[in-house]
């Protein structure tokens, strides 16, 4: 009798757990040890679908990046024109609702935490007089409350963490322009200085927790001169004390400073420079399914397999759109002789 190995040149692989999208080839045949049955694997690719539109389209909007696709907060923002926003909107997986405003209109702030317990820190307002903020606001579920100020006023930071344990990485002051390499950690009431970043970064995508964070891509300058910045693919991991360089993002993601979420070992970022979205597994990047619209400088967050991105600029000029990601799935089917 002809065997499977003789036909295909390989034997059937025995497995004792369900195949995962990352390791299973579509159409592969496996012997499922627990059920003692032959199974084939069918891959359903991931995809970005439209979510509910923001009530007010804007860019440089911030997010409760540790929230979920069905429970997200979007706050602050800029545009159209030079309009600056204190608006806060809450998303339930279907629609955005306006809730209590920030105490002050700002954009390009840091945003972390969850829908029920978000943190907004720093930021910038071009409304006269020009202000780069050091203020911090905590969202308690229904309103914002001011708390401890950052030691260095900044905008365009890479921010990650929770309401009681966040990191503000690097950033800039605008008008007059200056870049920073400082790191500050928030403990729920006070910001303290940490070790400096190995460079002057702005507009990085920050993901993870205070003790296991990551700052991806954005722009970098060799000095504090704002004019010296250029797009970068650099990836830096933070362990609560030190920054360590990791593998760089692909060249196609150079300068990505859009949105992102997840963890240090399962992160995503997208929104800029194109519709492409990157996944990071703790070591390497891979380019996954694109969003339908380009949403640079939008908000975003949630886990890698169920991310959400909203607002932004360029395609279309000012966006109120939301997109939600459904990660790839594997379906096992039992093979029979019939």
């Amino acid at each position, binding site marked *: 009798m002809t065997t499977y190995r003789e036909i295909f040149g390989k034997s059937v692989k025995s497995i004792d757990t369900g195949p995962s999208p990352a390791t299973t080839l579509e159409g592969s045949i496996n012997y499922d040890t627990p059920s003692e049955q032959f199974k084939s694997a069918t891959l*359903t690719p991931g995809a970005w*679908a439209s979510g509910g539109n923001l009530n007010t389209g804007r860019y440089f909007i911030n997010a409760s990046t540790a929230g979920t696709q069905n429970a997200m907060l979007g706050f602050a923002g800029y545009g159209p*024109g030079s309009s600056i926003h204190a608006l806060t909107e809450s998303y339930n997986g*279907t629609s955005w609702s306006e809730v209590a405003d920030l105490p002050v209109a700002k954009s390009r702030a840091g945003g972390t935490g969850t829908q029920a317990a978000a943190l907004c820190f720093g930021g910038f307002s071009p409304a006269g007089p020009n202000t780069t903020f050091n203020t911090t606001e905590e969202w308690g579920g229904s309103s914002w409350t001011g708390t401890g100020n950052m030691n260095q006023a900044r905008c365009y930071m890479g921010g990650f963490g929770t309401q009681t344990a966040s990191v503000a990485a690097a950033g800039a002051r605008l*008008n007059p322009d200056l870049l920073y390499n400082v790191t500050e950690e928030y403990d729920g009431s006070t910001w303290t200085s940490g070790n400096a970043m190995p460079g002057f970064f702005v507009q990085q995508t920050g993901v993870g927790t205070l003790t296991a964070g990551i700052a991806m891509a954005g722009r970098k300058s060799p000095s504090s001169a704002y004019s010296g910045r250029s797009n970068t693919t650099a990836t830096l991991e933070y362990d609560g004390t030190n920054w360590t360089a990791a593998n760089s993002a692909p060249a196609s993601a150079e300068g990505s400073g859009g949105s992102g979420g997840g963890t240090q070992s399962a992160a995503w970022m997208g929104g800029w420079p194109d519709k492409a979205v990157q996944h990071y597994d703790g070591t390497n990047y891979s380019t996954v399914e694109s969003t339908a619209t380009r949403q640079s400088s939008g908000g975003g967050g949630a886990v890698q397999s169920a991310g959400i991105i909203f607002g932004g600029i360029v395609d279309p000029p000012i966006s109120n*759109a939301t997109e939600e990601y459904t990660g790839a799935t594997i379906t096992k089917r039992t093979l029979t002789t019939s």
Partner: protein
Amino acid sequence: MALFIYGTATHTGKNFFTAEDRRAFFLRGYPANVWVVGNNEKGALWLANHNGVEKTKSEAQALVTADVNAAQAAWDALSEEARAGTNRPTEVTLP
């Protein structure tokens, strides 16, 4: 046969395009509510089901360019302070 269908349709929010749509055909959004979809049955049905108005590629490009030009003019009119940290909207070329 052309690779894409061009059209305009108003983005209505949730489920305007689904994950299933994205897996079934090419779909990209551009300024001026211009959508480029794969030239197959499912792509054509999606545009029709969303009250889309089919355009030629040149008509769609003209709409996009007009929207970008308006955004560029608005950016040019901003003060130096208001432009801080922003980039002038760039040209968009449809596929």
